[in-house]
């Protein structure tokens, strides 16, 4: 199996994957697709892995997949946390009222929910807990999405990179390459096509 690759640019894949995870997980209705096992996190992590694979000259390992998933998850999860934390503070009354209306909520639970509704600090704490734990889930699934993305999209398993030219190779070698018209790679230098 190839060894981990160094010198990869994680920025663009992480940014795009993270944006997909964070933004789509905050848009009403669209975020509902996360109920399918955190779908946007898997998609974001997988997309980041695919972009990294496309930009890498050598096969990637799941280490790079997990790393790009981690970066994307931190970006997306961070964005999600900020948005959801703010929204949760404003919606906490509604969330607690909904929890109190569940058939399994008994009198003690309703009393506790009422205490939280009357205490601003407790409301903020609950909002922090909900958004933090949710963002942590997004982060975890994005990392997994990155790893599984490498498993799915990396087709270059076991291929070694082409060896470097030996030292003192003349710059105009091989002669008559690239060929002028005719078939390409016609036996003079270059690598055989896959």
């Amino acid at each position, binding site marked *: 199996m190839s060894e981990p690759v160094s010198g990869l640019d994680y920025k663009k894949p992480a940014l795009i994957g993270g944006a997909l995870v964070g933004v789509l997980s905050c848009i009403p209705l669209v975020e509902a697709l996360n109920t399918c096992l955190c779908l946007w996190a898997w998609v974001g992590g997988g997309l980041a892995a695919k972009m990294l694979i496309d930009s890498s000259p050598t096969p990637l390992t799941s280490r790079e997949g997990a790393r790009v998933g981690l970066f994307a998850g931190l970006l997306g999860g961070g964005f999600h946390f900020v948005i959801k934390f703010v929204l949760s503070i404003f919606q906490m009354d509604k969330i607690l009222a909904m929890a109190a209306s569940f058939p399994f909520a008994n009198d003690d639970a309703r009393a506790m929910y009422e205490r939280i509704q009357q205490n601003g600090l407790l409301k903020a704490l609950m909002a922090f807990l909900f958004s933090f734990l949710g963002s942590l889930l997004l982060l975890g699934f994005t990392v997994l999405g990155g790893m*599984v993305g490498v498993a799915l999209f990396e087709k270059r398993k076991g291929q070694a990179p082409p060896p470097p030219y030996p030292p003192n190779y003349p710059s105009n070698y091989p002669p008559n390459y690239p060929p002028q018209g005719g078939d390409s790679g016609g036996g003079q230098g270059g690598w055989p096509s896959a």
Partner: protein
Amino acid sequence: MTQAERVKQVYAVSLIVGVGWAGLLWLTPHLLAAGHYLSATALYQSFALVCHQRPERSFHWHGFPLAVCARCTGVYVGIAVGLLLYPFVRDLREREFPARHWLVVAALPMLLDVVGQGIGWWQNTAIARSLTGLVLGVGVAFFLLPGMMTLFGWRGARARA
């Protein structure tokens, strides 16, 4: 620490996390039944991100619904089961992923179940949803563990078994 010990350590941690995660699903209603409403609500609300949590489509424990629906419960339990089965099927030191078509095969029962229900071929049940989820979860575990081994189980090109 030898490489073999490291590999076993990574496996043990992965197994604990997988089983622990599945255990959280039952802990949530248990906390609610025991009167720990704050922690139970926090857990329910967190899992709300990844599941619709409809009580009529969820298993129940102590009279309260699990943290996620039957299908998601099947997936997470399947991951734990897959992690338990893994050493009997593959070498723990293996870092290559299985052939990717196995992931598709693992997802097929669930896809068929969802599509069949959606277009009215059949009305699925909680058992069917959880079993198809279990199959997917087992498949996912076989892809996750090689990834974990690559991430944490090996150090350097000269790592020895």
